[in-house]
C-alpha cells in the first residue's frame, strides 16, 4: 500500500543522503522524495512516498527515527491529510490541437504559463493520481516533456508536525 511519510530533519549537509542511503541499503522503495528547508532554516521537511506491507512501513518509520539527524517522523497516510504535487508539462499545440490542449488544461484546472506558436507549457497541481489522469487524457504523442516535483504532504486540521 502507498504511504506518505513526512520527516522533519536537521538542515545539514549529508542529511538527505542519510535518508536515501537508508532506503537503498535496506531495500525499501522510494516512489518520490521531496525536501526543502522550512520557516525555521535549521530544519528541513521531507515528504517520501513509498509502498510496502504494514511491517515494512513500520520498519521504515522506525529506521528513519533512528537516524541521528531526524527530528520527527509521521506517516501521514495514517490520518486525514492533503497531498499535492506540481507538474510542468510541455505539449505540442498546433492546428486543431491548440484549442484541445487549452480545454484539457482548463478541465484539470491547469494554467498555461508559457506559449509559443508550436507549444504550450502547462502548470498543474494536485494529487499524484490527478496528474497521472491528465497525462492519460492527453494524446501521448503531443507530450514533449514532463517534470514532476513528487508529492508534498501535510496533515489536515490541527495535525501539525513541529520540532
Amino acid at each position, binding site marked *: 500500500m502507498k504511504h506518505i511519510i513526512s520527516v522533519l530533519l536537521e538542515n545539514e549537509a549529508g542529511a538527505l543522503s542519510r535518508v536515501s542511503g537508508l532506503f537503498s541499503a535496506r531495500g525499501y522503495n522510494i516512489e518520490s522524495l521531496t525536501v526543502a528547508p522550512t520557516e525555521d532554516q535549521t530544519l528541513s521537511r521531507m515528504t517520501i512516498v513509498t509502498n510496502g506491507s504494514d*511491517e515494512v512501513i513500520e520498519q521504515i518509520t522506525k*529506521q528513519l*527515527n*533512528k537516524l*541521528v539527524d531526524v527530528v520527527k517522523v509521521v506517516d501521514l497516510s495514517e490520518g486525514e491529510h492533503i497531498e499535492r504535487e506540481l507538474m510542468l508539462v510541455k505539449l505540442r499545440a498546433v492546428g486543431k490541437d491548440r484549442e484541445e490542449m487549452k480545454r484539457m488544461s482548463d478541465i484539470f484546472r491547469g494554467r498555461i504559463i508559457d506559449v509559443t506558436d508550436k507549444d504550450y507549457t502547462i502548470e498543474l497541481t494536485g494529487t499524484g493520481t490527478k496528474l497521472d489522469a491528465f497525462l492519460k487524457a492527453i494524446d501521448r504523442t503531443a507530450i514533449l516533456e514532463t517534470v514532476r516535483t513528487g508529492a508534498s504532504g501535510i496533515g489536515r486540521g490541527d495535525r501539525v508536525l513541529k520540532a
Partner: protein
Amino acid sequence: MLLTGAEIVVRCLQEEGVEHVFGYPGGAVLFIYDEISKQDKVKHILTRHEQGALHAADGYARSTNKVGVALVTSGPGVTNAVTGIATAYTDSIPLVVITGQVPTHAIGEDAFQECDTVGITRPCVKHNFLVRDAKDIAATIKKAFYIASTGRPGPVVVDIPKDVTANKAEFEYPDKVVMRSYNPVVKGHAGQIKKALQLLAAAKRPVIYTGGGVILGDAAVELTQLVKTLGFPCTNTLMGLGGYPATDKQFLGMLGMHGTYEANLAMQNCDVLFAIGARFDDRVIGNPKHFFDPKRTIIHVDVDPASISKRVRVDVPIVGNVRDVLKEFNKQLEGGKFNKDAAAVKEWWAQIEEWRSRDCLKYDRASPIIKPQYVVQKLYEITKGEAIVTSDVGQHQMWAAQFYKFVKPRRWINSGGLGTMGFGMPAAIGAQLANPKATVACVTGEASIQMCIQELSTAKQYRLPIKVVNLNNRYMGMVRQWQEFFHGNRYAESYMDALPDFVKLAESYGHVGMRIDKPADVEPALKEAFARKKDLVFMDFITDQTENVYPMVPGGKGLSEMILV
C-alpha cells in the same frame, strides 16, 4: 585562550578521560600526532594496520564499558579502517573514530589520499561528522562520545580536514549535549512490564533468550537475579555469552546455528519467549517461517525500537535500557506475588533434561589426533574460566563459544554480526591494554590469524602477554565444513597451502612459539604457556582436519532441523 584544532582534539580526548587511542599516523593527521606526543595523559598505541587499530579499540570497548577510540589518516587510512568500523557497527560497540581529511580547499578535487569518508562510512556508523571549522571540534567530539555510548551504542566517525587541525579557535569543552533529534529511551513502560509478568506467570513452557544487549547494557547481575527468581530456562546468543553464568543448571547453552540441542528445541517448542537484548537474527532463529510454527507469545526487551518486530512479530514490546527494564522486573517481583504454573514448568524442565541428556557436544575423547574441542576445554580448565577470550571467525570461534563456560560478561569477545576474520588478535591487544592484570587468550585458526598477523608486532612493542591458541587444521574449517555438507565434498580453495611455520614466525616477532601435535601434550603446553606471565605465547595446535562443529542448523532451515553428531 586560542588553541589549534589539533590541540583541541587532544584536549577533548583528555576531557573524556580517554587513556588509550589506537591508530596509525599519516599526512592528514600529523598535527594531531604532534600534539599527542606533547602530553602523556592520552597514550597512543601504534598498530601495524588501520584495521588492527579499529579492532583493538573495539576489543578495548568490549572488555570494559568505555568508548574505544581510534585515530587514522585520510584516504587509505579510512578505507582500511572500514572493516573495523563495520564490525563494531554490527555488534553495537561504542567507538569514536577520528579520521584525517585533506584540507577543506582540496575536498572534492581528488586530492592525494582523499576519499569521501563521510560517504564511505555512512552505512556502517551510528553517525558521522565532517568538521569544517576549528571552533566546532569540541562540540562535535562531545556529541560523538555521547552518541556512541548512549541508546544502542555504535561507532561514530569524526572527519577533520588537515587545515582545521592547524587553525586556531577558543577551546571550551561542553558539559552536556542537548540534541532535539536524538533522545534515546531509557526506562521501560511499567504497564508493559506488568503485562509481561502476567504472561510469564501463565507460561507452561517458558524460555528466556538473551543477547548482546545484556552485555552492552551491563545487565548481567539483573538478568541473573531475574532468571533465578523465575526459575525458567535461559539461553544466550553468541553475543550474549557471559550474560548468564554458563555453569548454572538453568543455562541451556548457546542457541542458534551451532547452539545446543536443548537450547534450540526449547526455543522452538516454548509457549512464552522472553527475549532480552537480542534481535532474532538469521543465525539465531534460522528460518523465520519455520520458527513461527508453532506460534508462541513473545516478550521483547530492547533499547532499539527498530529491533522489535523486525524479523518476528512481537506481542509485548518493551523499549528501554535493558538494565533499567530488568531492574523494574525484579522490583515488581519483590512482593512475591509471582505465581508461576509450577506443575507445567516442572514438566517442561523434565522435557529439557531429556533433550540435554542427548549430550549434543560430545566428541571423540580417545582420538589420537588433537580434537579442537579438547583444546578449548583444557583452556577453560587451566584458566579456571576467568580469562578474557577473544576469537576470530570460523569453527574455532564456535568451539570456543560452546566449550569455554563464561560466567561473567565482557570476557567473550568476538565478531558475531559481521563475522570478521582477523578480529581476534587486535581485539586481544585492546582487551589486554584495558585489563592489564587479566589473562587474555586469543582462540584462532591458521586462516583467521593471518588476516591480522602483523599485530604480533604491536603486541611485542607494548609487551602484551597474550596467549594465542591457534587451532591449526590446515583448512578454512568452516568453509570446508559447508563444502562437505552442502557442496559435495568439493573443497574449493579452502585448503591452506604454504602455511608459515608459526613457531618461527612468533619467534621472529620476539615472542615464544610452541607447536603441539599430540593430545597428551595439550594440557602441559597450556600450563607452561599460561605460566609465562610476561610473554606472548603462540601455541600452534595441530588439530584434526575433518572435525566439524555440531549441532548445526543448515542455512534456511528451522531450529529443530539440526544436524547432530
